[in-house]
C-alpha cells in the first residue's frame, strides 16, 4: 500500500480507505468510534510505523471524532508508537515464564549484538529493541515478536539468523502484515 504523508497533505491509499470503510460497517450506525483502534493500526502501518499528531488528526476526521478522542486512545495502548522507531521492532517478552527460560540472557545478547540498550534504535534505523509483557507464548520461551510474527524457542544462533534475515529483507515490519 502506498499512502501520502507529506507536510501539508496526508491521506490513505484507496486500498486502505476501502479497508477502513469495511471496518466501520462492522459496528452499528453511529458507533463508528468502535473502529478507532483497528483504524489506528492501519494508520501506523501506512505512515512509517508511528502515529504523528498529523496522522491522528487525519484518523479523527475520517471517523468524525474530536482529535482528543484519538489522542486519548493512542496514548493508552502499548502497541501504538508515538515516536518514530526502527523498521524492525524486536519485542522480547520478559515476564516470569520467559524469564525462567532465559529471556534476560536473550535481551543481553541482543543488546550486545546490536550495540544498543533496550529501548534504543540502531544508528541505521533498522532495529529497535524493547522488552514487553507476556505475549501468550510462554510455552515456547524465550521469544520475541517482530511485526506480525512470533519467533519462539530462541537461542543465540536463531537470534543471529533472524537478525540477518531481517537485514536482508530490509522492510518495515508491521503488526498488520499478512504472514
Amino acid at each position: 500500500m502506498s499512502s501520502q504523508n507529506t507536510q501539508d497533505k496526508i491521506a490513505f491509499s484507496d486500498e486502505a480507505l476501502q479497508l477502513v470503510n469495511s471496518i466501520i460497517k462492522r459496528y452499528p450506525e453511529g458507533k463508528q468510534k468502535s473502529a478507532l483502534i483497528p483504524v489506528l493500526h492501519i494508520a501506523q502501518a501506512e505512515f512509517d510505523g508511528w502515529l504523528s499528531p498529523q496522522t491522528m488528526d487525519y484518523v479523527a476526521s475520517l471517523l468524525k471524532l474530536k482529535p482528543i478522542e484519538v489522542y486519548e486512545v493512542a496514548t493508552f495502548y502499548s502497541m501504538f508508537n508515538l515516536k518514530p522507531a526502527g523498521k524492525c521492532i524486536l519485542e522480547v517478552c520478559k515476564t516470569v515464564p520467559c524469564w525462567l527460560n532465559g529471556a534476560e540472557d536473550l535481551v543481553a545478547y541482543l543488546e550486545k549484538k546490536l550495540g544498543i540498550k533496550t529501548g534504543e534504535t540502531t544508528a541505521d534505523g533498522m532495529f529497535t529493541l524493547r522488552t514487553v509483557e507476556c505475549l501468550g507464548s510462554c510455552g515456547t520461551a524465550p521469544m520475541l515478536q517482530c511485526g506480525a510474527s512470533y519467533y519462539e524457542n530462541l537461542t543465540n544462533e536463531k537470534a543471529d539468523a533472524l537478525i540477518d534475515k531481517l537485514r536482508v529483507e530490509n522492510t518495515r515490519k508491521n503488526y498488520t502484515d499478512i504472514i
Partner: protein
Amino acid sequence: MGKKLLLEHINVEGIQSLEVYRKMGGYASVEKAIKTMTPDEVVEEVKKSGLRGRGGAGFPTGMKWSFIAKPQGVPRYLVCNADESEPGTFKDRYLMEKIPHSLIEGMITSSYALGANTSYIYIRGEYFYVSRILERAIAEAYAAGWLGKNILGSGYDLDLYVHVGAGAYICGEETALLESLEGKRGNPRIKPPFPAVKGLYGSPTVVNNVETIATVSHIVNMGGEEYAKIGIGRSTGTKLISAGGNINKPGVYEIELGVPVEEFIFSDEYCGGIPNGRKLKACVPGGSSVPILPAHLLLKTAKNESRLMSYESLSDGGFESGSMLGSGGFIVYDDRACIVRSTYNFSHFYRHESCGQCSPCREGTSWMEKILKEIEYGRGTMDDIDLLWDIQGNIEGKTICPLGDAAAWPVAAAIRHFRHEFEYHVKYPEKVKDIKHTPPPMPV
C-alpha cells in the same frame, strides 16, 4: 488418557479448514441447537453442565447467561474475550490458531442461546496473525451459510466480527474490554450496572472467554448432564492448562478436572517433570494473579490430602495454604529460581498494566515495584518487607476492578511462603548482587 473434547481433533491434518472440521463432526451443535432446541433450552443445558467460566473467575456460565436482560426492541450482544494477557496463559491462542472453527461454532450456538444477532471476538492486538486465521474461518462459515441471514432456514440471523485490541492487559477485564470495543481507553467501569444489563453500547451483553464458548458446543452435543459427569464435584468437564516455566514439556494440555497436581507435573502424559535433574520449588498454578505455592503445599493440601487440578482443591486452605485454578496458566519454578526476582518481575507487570483510575492500585503498584527492586538488588531493609505487606493489604478489595487484588495477591503469597528469601536479600547484599544468584534453600 483423560477425556478430550476441545483438543480431540487438534492433530487432524487440515482441521483449520471448514471442510475437515465438518468431517470431524464440526457444527453439529449449531444444527442441533437451531433445529431442535429453543434458546432457553440451550441455556438450560449449559446450566446443567455446571460449566464455569474459563477466563479466570470460574463463574457458572449458565447462571451468567440467565441474568441477561431482555428488554423489547433492544439488541443483545455476545462478546468473546480473546484478550488472553494473563502471564502464563496461552491456551486461547492455541485453540484459535489450531482449530479456529471451534470458536466460531461456539459463538454461533451461544449467540443463538442469548438471542444475539451481532457478536464480536475481541482479540489482543499482539495476536494479529491469529485474527487473520479467525477471519478466514468466519468467511468460510458465511459462505457455507453458518453465519449471516436466516441460518439453516430458521429465520435466525447472526453477524460475527473480529475486533483487534492494541496492547493492554486491563482490556481482559470485561468492562474495560467493552470500553475498548467502543473505541475508548480501557478503563474498567464501575459495577453495577453489570454488562448483562448495560454492556456494549448500553445494551445487555455477555462476555465469555474463548475456551468457555468453545466448550458450549460440546455441552449442546452431549447434553449438560453427560458433560457434568466429566471432572470432579463442582469442577465439571475438561480444562485447558497452559504449562510453562521449568518443565520438560511446556505446552497446552486438556485435562479432566481432578487430575492430581503431582501427576500433572511429573507424568509423561503432561509436563514430564523438571528438566536437568533439578527439584520442584514452587508453582503459580492459575496465571500470574493467583498466589504462588511452595512445592510441599502444591502437591499436598495443608490437611495432607493429595492436591488436585480442580477449582476446589487448588483453593483448599484459602490463601493461607492454597491458591486458585484461575485461567489455568501453570508456571513451574525449579530450585534455582529466586522468588524475590519473580515477585519483582510480576510487580513491574501490574504497575505497567494498571489503568490508573484508582489511587490504591495506581500508587500501590508503583510503590511495591520500587520496594521490590530495592530488596532484589540488596538495598532493602527488614522494615521494607513489612511495608510491602502493608501496601498490598491496602490495595486488596479497595479498587474498581480486580486488577488491584491481582497485583496484591502475588506479593502477599511470596512473603507468606518465602519470607526467608526476602530476608536473605536484606542480610546478604553481596550474595544477591549477581542477578543469577542462588537462592537460599527452603527452611525445613
